[in-house]
Structures are given as C-alpha cells and as structure tokens.
C-alpha cells in the first residue's frame, strides 16, 4: 500500500498538504508541520511588501459548528524578507509550495519573479482571499482576469502553478476553466466563505476588519460539492486539490472520492498538536485503504462518480 501522490509532475509522500495561512508564516512552523508527517506544506500567502494585515480580533473559533472565522487579511513579511524563511525550508528539504498574492497582475508577477529561482515545489496563486479590500477574491471572480494572470505567470516560470479558487462565486467551474485555459497545473478549492459574527452585547462585528472568512467543519459539505462539480467537468484533465473542513481521515477520503488528487488541511491542523492530528488522519486512511482493497491513493480519486 502506497501513500505517494502525484499532482501533475510533482510527487509527494502522501496526499496531505498544509493549507496556506495556517502555521505558514515562519519556516520553523512549516518545517515542523512537514516533520509531523505531511506530504508538503504551503506558506502563508506572500505579497510584494510587508503588511500588518487587519486589526485584531482576526481569528477566533465558533465552537458550536467546529469552525473558525478569520480576517488575518494577508498579513505577511513581503517576499524579500520571506526569502530567508524559504531558504531555510529548502535547506531542510521541506517540500514547499509558496502561496503568492497581489492586488493586480503586476504585483503577482513581482512576487513570482522574486522567488522563482528558489528550489521550491511550485507556487499556489491565491485568487481567493475574502479579507482584503483590493485584490483577493475580487480578482478570483472574473474569468478574464483569472485567465490573464495565470497565463502571464505561467510564461515566467516552469515551476508548477496551482490556482486557488474562492467558493464565493455563482459558477466555480467557469473560473476554473479560465485558469485551466491559462495553463495552470492544478486547481485548488476552496478558500474561506464570506462570513461575519456580531457581538450582541456591544452591538458590533467582532473581527477588527468586521468581515471575515469561514473555515473548518462547517464548510466541508460545501468544499466536497465544489470538488465534485469540478471533477465532473475536468475528470483527470487536471489535478484538483480539495480544501475545506478536513479534520479526520474520513474527511480526506470523502474529498478523494469527490475527485481530489490531494487535500489541504488548515484550521484543524493548527488547533492543538499537528503531530497527533496527522498521525490519527494517516492511521484512518490506511485502515480505510486496507478495508477497501486500495493499494494507492490515486485509485480512490473520483470514486464517487461511478
């Protein structure tokens, strides 16, 4: 039984990837997440300049629905400062995807150009953050913009480009199509859902940025649906990576069956101890594969479409 997973030309030791923005701001937390047993890690989304992000509160839990809301809003050190962290990751042989963002095509290009010489696994292009005023998910809702950005970035590098989509659209397949036409190497879905929590005692939105994005268990049925719909359209034409609400081995299998080639895990891995969580998840997947006579991860992908 093998856990190796192929995402296009990339091979990783198992299909579990750390989602962007969770444990992703420092090389040491990324290294730690990889050492804990993941197949690869994705950095926090990195932009052209250092940003403080949005005021706190910027992350808190909604326990009753086993979820988080956040408005961290792309707080990041900027690519120039973050090069040092990436270099550490490369040195320690941590398979690293760098998530990048920008407010427009020029900014995306600047970040990619500034990091593409590093020995990383590839880039994830974040077209989907709901927590900024400019850029972010605005960009990810327009097929033409998506096509142009992907095409431009693709012309600049041979490294794999993954495109991360927002669920806050009428038709995710249309956006994915634009990205595929632009030449991307994988589709990643979903980012957080537009959300808000108001405190009724003080009568104000709790997040410092007021608006935020919902992640965690609450969005799993939504993520599964999107992966299923994407797989219906693309089958094995392009790898699809599932994200959203994974906290158990069963959730990983559900995403694979829906059509995911690999998965990303965010909220659940940050809460408490990555080491334990990843061990539990891996054990459960192994057990499932044994019970259902699977010898490789790839065989599970798309199983719910038969």
């Amino acid at each position, binding site marked *: 039984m093998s856990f190796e997973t192929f995402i296009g030309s990339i091979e990783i030791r198992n299909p579990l990837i750390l989602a962007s*923005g*969770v*444990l*992703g*701001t*420092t*090389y*040491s*937390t*990324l*290294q*730690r*997440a990889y050492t804990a047993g993941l197949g690869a890690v994705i950095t*926090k989304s990195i932009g052209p300049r*250092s*940003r*403080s*992000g949005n*005021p*706190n*509160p*910027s*992350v*808190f*839990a*909604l*326990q009753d629905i*086993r*979820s*988080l809301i*956040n408005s*961290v809003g792309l*707080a*990041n*050190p*900027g690519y120039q*400062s*973050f090069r040092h962290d990436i270099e*550490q990751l490369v040195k320690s042989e941590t398979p690293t995807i760098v998530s990048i963002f920008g407010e427009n095509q020029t900014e995306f290009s600047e970040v990619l150009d500034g990091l593409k010489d590093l020995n990383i696994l590839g880039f994830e292009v974040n077209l989907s953050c709901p927590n900024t005023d400019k850029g972010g998910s605005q960009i990810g809702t327009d097929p033409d913009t998506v096509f142009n950005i992907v095409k431009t970035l693709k012309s600049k590098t041979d490294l794999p480009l993954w495109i991360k989509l927002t669920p806050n659209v009428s038709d995710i397949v249309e956006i994915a199509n634009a990205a595929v036409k632009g030449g991307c190497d994988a589709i990643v879905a979903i980012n957080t859902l537009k959300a808000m*929590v108001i*405190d009724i*005692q*003080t009568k*104000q939105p*709790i997040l*410092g940025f007021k608006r935020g994005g919902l992640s965690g268990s609450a969005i799993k049925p939504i993520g599964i649906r999107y992966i299923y719909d994407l797989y219906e359209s693309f089958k094995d034409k392009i790898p699809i990576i599932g994200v959203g609400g994974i*906290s*158990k*081995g069963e959730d990983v299998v559900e995403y694979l069956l829906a059509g995911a080639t690999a998965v990303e895990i*965010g909220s*659940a891995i*940050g*809460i*408490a*101890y990555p080491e334990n*969580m990843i061990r*539990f*998840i891996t*054990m*459960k997947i192994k057990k499932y594969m044994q019970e259902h006579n699977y010898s490789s991860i790839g065989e599970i992908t798309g199983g719910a479409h038969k």
Partner: protein
Amino acid sequence: MTRQTLPNTKPIMCKIIKKEEECEDTFTFLLEIPVKVQGAKPGQFIMLWVPGVDEFPIGIAGFENNVLEIGIAKMGKGTEALLKKEVGDYLGIRGFYGKQFQVPREGEVNHLLIGGGFGMTPLKMLTTTLIKQEDKQEIHVFEGARTKSRLMYLEWFQNLHDAGKLVFHACTDDGSYGYKGYPTVDLEKFLQEARGSSIFYVAGPERMMKVIFDIGKKYDTVIDMQMSLADRYMRCGFGVCSYCAVDPTGWRICVDGPIFNTKQLEQITDFGVYKRLETGEKERI
C-alpha cells in the same frame, strides 16, 4: 476517534465588576465570566477584546468563583483604551490558553519567582497556588521596577512577606523601595547561600529573562527554569496562525508555551534575541 474539539469560542463578554489602581499606569480588573468555565492555571493567558479597539494576550492573575483577575499595564493604544473602561463595561475574553507553570508535586525545593512589570500577573497567581500547598517549601519572590510607584502588587506581596508566607525581595532602579538595583542581585546572593535545589519561575521583559537564564545555568542547584515568553505578537491564541512562533523549533508561544522550561529554552535560539512582528518579519529584541 480523531475528532478534535475546538478548545475555545468566540469572545465571551464579561462584565467588569471591580477596577482598582494597582500601581502607576497599572490597574487590576475583576471580570465576571457569565458561563461556567474550567479553572485557569497559573501561567495561562486569555485573549482580551476591548470592543472596537483591539484584542491582545493578557496573563491571568487569579481565578475564583468564575471571577477572573487581570492586571493591565499601560503600553499603547489598546491597553490605554482598556484602562479607561469602568465597572459595568464589558470586555470579551477567549481562553484559557497556553501551558501552566509546572510545580513539582513532591521533593523539597525552593520556589524562586522572579519578575517585573506585567510579568507579575502570572506570578501572583502562581504564588496563590504555592502558598496553598501544605509542605513547607521556601517561596521567594524577586520583583524589580524603575521606582516604587511601579512595583506591581507591592502591598500584596509585602503583606504575605510580613505574614511569613514567603520572602519578598523587592528592588528598584532608584532605590525608592527595597534595595537599589536589579532582582538579579538578590537572586545571586540567594543562590550562593541557599541549601537544596531551586526552581525559577520567571516572567518579565525577555532580555531580563535571558540574563536570569544565564545566571541560573551557572548553578547546579537550579534544577529547572520556567519562563513565560510574553514578548511575541499573537493573533489567534490557539495555535493556528503561527505569528507567535519561535525559531528554530516552530513552537507556538500560545499553545506550546508561553511557559517553557530549561530544556526547551536551550533549543529556542530566538530566546532573548529575535521576535516576529505582526507581519511575520523577524526583528532583534
């Protein structure tokens, strides 16, 4: 089962039921928690939301009957707004987060609590716990400040000292209370004379803690040093965002700390040297 329960909730709104000036620019607040919560442990902290202003980590100075005691020192915009809050106002809390001070269950040992500034808040709670313990172990509290008016919990510690519950070593930069100088002076004196082993519990500015750490390492009798790293920017408080993490271990202050022991501190090369800003950039402390 791999099922994991979120350890926390959205901010729980708590009414301020008491506010008292503690020392210069520093106030004690008592907050009434409207829901039943599990007991807080010395060394743990909360994320405190000043509605409409900011949210930041604050140590726990006491917890009894669902009432939380915190001590706030004026720093910048957020703490200033907080200090303007009055009895009857509401603050949001999330928590309790982080690891506690590890007090050995048995064996004779000197408990040395060393700190300054708002670092005294977890040490106050630790003191409360220690003096409840039956066994007759020595408790020494070393507190330093610029001047008398900035010694936190001065009266509280002095009273315990007078009652023979602990030995209070106060010092000030200007000699306005206690001896003139740093807490390290009395600390070293104590270590040179003391019998038996000692444990450090330290909370204060990180550079001061580094100095104390280096002192402690010189003495075989110091069997552990536990220090509260509270000089790191925090967003989530429960391990998700990584802004509070230290290199090269990838430990998150909020979950894997804020209390670290000697063995851990030796591995944290950032300790006393670097911290991350709210952008994730690294900066010299």
